[in-house]
């Protein structure tokens, strides 16, 4: 079982790789819409990649109001 820190790290790693930003430029408390410069469509794409990576289903309504990596990781952790 992953810890929340491991899950957060994997989320940050995946976001950095997919959106081609340096991993060290991202931190858990960042607003991913602002930091990655993404819109809702790209956020949905990230959600799909996270579902594949963690082998979970993460309903998009659970992302409503969520914009920082740490909270996103918490939502994922609840389904691992």
């Amino acid at each position, binding site marked *: 079982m992953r810890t929340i820190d491991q899950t957060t790290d994997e989320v940050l790693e995946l976001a950095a790789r997919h959106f081609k930003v340096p991993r060290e430029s991202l931190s858990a408390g960042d607003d991913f819409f602002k930091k990655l410069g993404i*819109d*809702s*469509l790209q*956020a*949905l*794409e990230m959600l*799909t*990649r996270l*579902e*594949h990576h963690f082998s979970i*289903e993460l*309903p*998009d*309504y659970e*992302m*409503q*109001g*969520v914009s920082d990596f740490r909270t996103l990781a918490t939502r994922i952790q609840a389904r691992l």
Partner: protein
Amino acid sequence: MNSFTGTTLSWSLRDSAVELELHRLPANEIGSEMLAELEQFIAALDGFTKQASSLIVHSSIASGFSAGADLRELYHSSLPLDAAARLTGVREFLHRIHAVLNAIDDTPLTTIAAVHGICFGGGFELALACDLVVADKMARFCFPELRLGLIPGFGGIPRLKRDLGNAVVRDLLLTGRSINAQKASTAGLVSQLAAEGEALSLARATAAQVAKFDRTTSAAAKRFVKPIPYEDLRREIDLFCELFTRPAVMEGLRKFAESSDALPYLP
């Protein structure tokens, strides 16, 4: 007409398949212009039944297959009208799009939707009219209509009920959540999963296989396993129109139309 290039879509005959390509930016929203070109396609479709064995519907737009009905157009065209005229316009649009999707559902050709990216609302309903759905593993399917105070209006619920157990239908409809292609495959909506960027090539390979069979037999098999739920489709139009008259719907459409986001009803 063996090929056509319009402003929202194109079609051409390639080997044994007619390929209908959607290419309206930003996300293949189905509005009056695409509807008119879809009607042109349907008028040409009968002519293909002697030359082709399948129809592939796909999108060349990066964001995906289709974001669904053009809600911004719906809002702006409804705004200057009184309630009765709005309703008349919506009902007429629904009857026309139903005629298009019923014709795709009913064609003796084997129909394949090659889906990538977003496949939402009316786009999802177009895919559901097809016999087979081949989906890129990054595709997502969703009926977001309840977020606007509506139900799917292009035949989505009757066709979803035809294909799936009612528990999944209720989940998709009543939560408005999107599901990925893997989940859609497990549920029975998607028959083949493709690697990223490979949905069209898998659809073409499937069309090549379909072409090996006797067309009369294939068409008979299709009619046998895929009855068209006409009565439910008619009831869906009535229910949509009943809901559309409520003030909350115009308010939901206004918020949608005034947002500059690609998918305003998503997080």
